[in-house]
């Protein structure tokens, strides 16, 4: 599969491919999966349905897509075959997608977020292949509002907080890069990150694949969680500037997300390279055992993305390497914490159940985003150069 892409995308894509090769390598069987029969079981219509509402082919490799808050618009980010970066702004109009704007930039754009912008401004923060962090005003995209060469290598992942009314406190952006560092930026401070998390000198630099903000329930508290290619998950407490917790899930961590960023840490979902995901109950931290977790073998290949429904934190969608989407529900145990033999509180993990699954494509779904404004509206982009608008029905009934 990797070779196929190389051909199609030309030289520049080899960069991408270095990044994703490890992920794709493990997809193995993914392609062999035969399309299932069309046959709804009895209870099919009581379950939520995932509808592919609009599909659109693109002429570039799309890496990320994000809804523009308070609108029916979304942006897609990726790279053209000629090696330049692209941001496209689409709007849903009469059941179709209308391209409103296309912005071409020098470097391929890997990821983007609106998380740190105000509802009025709606500036897009992006990370590119060269390690640059830019903030764009989509109305005037010629020059970035903020620009910094944040990392030595590609910025794999980005997350924002403090904007859009999500999370109290300062607007901050966190970026994770192949250079092994995780940096937190405040758009008000030029040049330097406000926090930087880097491996020890001499220690192997691990490729950081995913970052996520969380625990921002008041102005002081905030954590950053980072996942690495070797399966490490590290939780950094930004208030105390300390590593609060770390664990290893054995396989590369492709995606991390807190169920909500702006409440006291409740749950964290981590998806991994070999098709599993782990749900950690983040309310109770045991001094030695850490957080309780439940894991589930979700897809037959890499789980590329996990995204919680903004309107209901117990529901989340995972996107698999073989173009499949799984909708899950987390159920709490009767008691969320118990005392261990020494009387120390420890968490109890709940269970996850599959609500619905569909296969959209044979290629990995690389990104996924729920509309913050409309329950059940979702976009996803996949490596077959498609962007899809999905509708998930009956979510309010769960």
């Amino acid at each position, binding site marked *: 599969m990797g070779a196929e892409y190389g051909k199609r995308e030309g030289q520049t894509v080899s960069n991408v491919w270095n990044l994703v090769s490890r992920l794709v390598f493990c997809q193995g069987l993914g392609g062999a999966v035969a399309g299932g029969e069309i046959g709804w079981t009895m209870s099919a219509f009581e379950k939520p349905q995932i509808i592919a509402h609009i599909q659109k082919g693109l002429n570039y490799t799309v890496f990320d897509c994000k809804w523009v808050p*308070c609108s029916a618009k979304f942006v897609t980010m990726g790279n053209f075959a000629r090696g330049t970066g692209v941001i496209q702004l689409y709007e849903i109009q009469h059941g179709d997608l209308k391209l409103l704007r296309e912005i071409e930039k020098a470097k391929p754009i890997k990821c983007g977020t609106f998380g740190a912008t105000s509802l*009025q401004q709606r500036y897009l923060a992006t990370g590119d292949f060269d390690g640059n962090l830019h903030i764009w005003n989509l109305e005037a995209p010629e020059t970035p509002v903020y620009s910094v060469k944040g990392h030595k290598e590609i910025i794999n992942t980005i997350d924002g907080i403090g904007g859009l009314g999500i999370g109290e406190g300062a607007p901050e952006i966190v970026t994770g890069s192949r250079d092994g560092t995780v940096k937190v930026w405040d758009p008000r401070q030029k040049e330097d990150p406000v*926090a930087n998390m880097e491996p020890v000198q001499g220690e192997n630099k691990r490729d950081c694949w995913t970052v996520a903000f969380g625990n921002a329930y008041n102005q002081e508290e905030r954590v950053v969680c980072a996942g690495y290619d070797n399966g490490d998950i590290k939780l950094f407490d930004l208030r105390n500037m300390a590593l609060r917790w770390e664990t290893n899930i054995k396989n590369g961590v492709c995606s991390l997300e807190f169920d909500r960023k702006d409440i006291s840490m409740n749950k964290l979902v981590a998806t991994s390279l070999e098709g599993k995901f782990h749900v950690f109950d983040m309310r109770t931290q045991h001094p030695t055992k850490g957080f309780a977790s439940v894991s589930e073998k979700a897809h037959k290949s890499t789980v590329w993305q996990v995204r919680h429904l903004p309107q209901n934190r117990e529901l989340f969608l995972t996107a698999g390497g073989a173009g499949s989407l799984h909708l899950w529900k987390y159920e709490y145990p009767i008691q969320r914490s118990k005392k261990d033999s020494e009387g120390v509180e420890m968490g109890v993990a709940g269970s996850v159940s599959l609500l619905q699954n569909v296969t959209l494509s044979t290629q990995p779904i690389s990104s996924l985003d729920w509309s913050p404004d409309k329950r059940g509206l979702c976009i996803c982009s996949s490596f077959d150069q498609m962007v899809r608008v999905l509708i998930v029905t009956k979510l309010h009934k769960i």
Partner: protein
Amino acid sequence: MTAKEHPSLWGFGTTKTFKIPIEHLDFKYIKKCSDVKHLEKILCVLRSGEEGYYPELTEFCEKRLQGLAPTSRALRKDKPAATASSFTAEEWEKIDGDIKSWVSEIKKEENKMHFYETETFTATEDNLPPVRGSNSCPYVGKEKYSKSRPAKKKIPRDYAEWDKFDVEKECLKIDEDYKEKIIVDNKSHLSKIEKKIDTTGLTEKEKDFLATREKEKGNEAFNSGDYEEAVMYYTRSISALPTVAAYNNRAQAEIKLQNWNSAFQDCEKVLELEPGNIKALLRRATTYQHQNKLQEAIEDLSKVLDVEPDNDLAKKTLSEVERDLKNSEPASKTQTKGKRMVIQEVENSEDEGGKGDGEKHEDGSGDNSKTFFLFWLRKELPFYMISWLNFLFVQTFLVYQALSSFALFLLMMQTLTSRTHFPTEAAEPRAMGNIQKKLTGKAEGGKRQARGAPRRGRAAGAGADKRGRPRASATAGGGANGHPGSGPVAGDPAAPPPPAAPAGPAGLKTQGNELFKSGQFAEAAGKYSAAIAQLEPGGSESADDLSILYSNRAACYLKEGNCSGCIQDCNRALELHPFSMKPLLRRAMAYEALEQYGKAYVDYKTVLQIDRGVQLANDSINRITRILMELDGPNWREKLSPIPAVPTSAPLGAWRPTAETTSQQVGHPSSHHQLGMTDEKMFTALKEEGNQCVKDKNYKDAISKYSECLKINNKECAIYTNRALCYLKLCQFEEAKQDCDQALQIDNGNVKAFYRRALAHKGLKNYQKSLTDLNKVLLLDPNIAEAKMELEEITRFLNIKDNTSSFNKQKERKKIEIQEVNESNEEEPERPSEEVSAACLASEKGDKSNGPPEYSEKLQISKPNNAYEFGQVINAINTRKDKEACAHLLAITAPEDLPMLLSNKLEGDIFLLLIQSLKNDLIAKDPSLVYQHLLYLSKAERFKMMLTLISKGQKEKIEQLFDDLSDTSNNHFTLEDIQALKRQYEL
């Protein structure tokens, strides 16, 4: 049934994958097979088609698996996404229309928002917190850190440095902080959440956005059972933009938390905003139900049922309420301890008022998903419910009381008035006293006497019929005056009303009693007031009468609900007649009505001191205790004003005359006899009270009780030992010792006395004597573990006194929980052992720290197991510059471990500290250890770096150390070794 059990007899072989025998791919086999794993494998093989394509068999296998394990992973199929064709036309129209309308709506909103863009932008900017790191240095340690290495900021921090922060900072402080955080209970963050959202400068749309978001957070918290968090988020939502849904949901969460009042208020708000909101009505009904406003609950429920006659929840609640209503009426007969309650659970996430799905849907069809939880809430009813039941209960009891005293009064009136011209009120105190007696008895007793009364009162010929039920006016009195305190009063004036009542105080009082009986409390109070006004100038002579009058007027006020007046009158009555029971009881009830539970408690307690048997007081105490515990938490007792100790003589003095005068009564012991009895009774009563006080940890009162006991009988050994215990608890060791001495004089083999004297001696730091006593204890009973432990400890204290310099002892120091000897004697109060032992421990701790003071000063050093522990210890030592401790640390640390323990944390100051402690303390004791340490120190990670950093003077010190080392001859190392090592140290 597994594959292994069925060897392939037919020789068909096995499948390629999983090696399943071919014959297992068979309808019959699959039908029988209950091994889910095996079935999954079969299904996998069938689907793969490697053994051929059998669609029916595959389907059959799927069905079988579905039946056994519906959630099996093998059943998950890849399905294409649904499209318009997967739905019926209407469904699709709905879905599509929904999206279309949203799109057009959001576009409109978006355009509006652009309009505001420029105006509001700056306002939000101002509210933002400062840039991280620019001004925030939460820890002092951090500042230090950056000072020592100014280039820090530019260099990216690595993980180790992140880790290091912990060590670098004042270890202990951070350690505590860290632990605290780890142990955080799940609710602690709630207090840190702002209750209000700052919405200045936000547009309506944004406020709505925020409010919705917060409400959703609330819904999620509600659904995960975190009701407090839910309330918090609903409150935030309301602070941003008050909505019906948020209020409604908060009401539901408050109901869950049983905060009926808050829930009620929220429902009120909803109904204000949206009159006739079904959910709010339902929820208000629930709060009414639990606040015992059953009538209002029924009203609300019927309103709901008017609109929605099929509302199951409303029906259910209504039937509950009606049953409650029925139950509460005959409650006087059946003392119900628990009550059935309904907590309604309304599917909350549907409460999105106005959003997308319509209201009618959420209220109507939503009912199916609404679940009912019925459970028994024992004693968790609101207070008034209980008190009301209690009141009914007491009422019936007091009717009997009233009747009995009534009959008695008739008898006395007859005898007295016929013989003498004694003023009527002279009879009063007797009757009252009698009633006081009677109150002590159970209702049973009252009943019996009431039955007997008519017989005796036959001469009077009026007032009571055979069933003991007063006729005519008396009935009214009995009924109306069912209130505990008023019962006796009602009985008092039951004589046939004199045709022309004398105008004097006695007459006024009689009139007052009459009026009281007939329920005209205000008028009765007026009469009493007049009587008081006449008697007032009489001063102390008429004190008794005045007291009664006040007491009666208090009863009137209580009836009228004039609680403060009642309290005032009771106070006056009590001034005149301290510790008389009726005013105390009335005052207690008034306090209770005023919700001054603490004071009520004290009064009831006082009543109980006078007479333990007063059921009303006992019940009330139980009730109030519960309330107070709820209000003030576990330490509610501390908030009480001290309960006045009733002097032994007081109640007796007050009773004796009455007891004497009524001695002619059948069934009453003669006063003489009673006196003798009383001493003994008083003694036991006091002792019990004392024990009770000990249980309650009210040692001071216990001491006074025991002292009273000793006044009556000073030959009781147990009292002395008990009092000694109290003194010990209060750390009054001298007194404790004396009591133990006394006890031992009476009984020179009393183990307890010995043990307590040992403790007292210990408290007095008289360890030698303590030791002797403990030895005696163990001699008498070698099985007392506590004594052994004490003995151990005392011995150690003694040793330390002898040898305070011994260092290693410190390590052995452990907290020893001193458990009191488990007293088997019945006079000893059984204590809630945990608490007492804790208290005991506390006091022990107290004297320990007074004892050998050098103890607590020192660091506790134990062998570090890893770099972290070592780092913590060494940092702690470093801050104190405690070379001795450092030497100790080095002495217990194996030199080979040193590089590991130091890891990369070897710093200049620590290095010097190590060198100094080696030089000062260890070289003399163990030169070979010093050598070893120096050797391994040179192998530590940052050693070379260290050497380049240290100053000349410091180098000289190291040199000195080496000189010292080479001076001491040792066979563990040679001079060459030292030379070699010196080179390592670049000397």
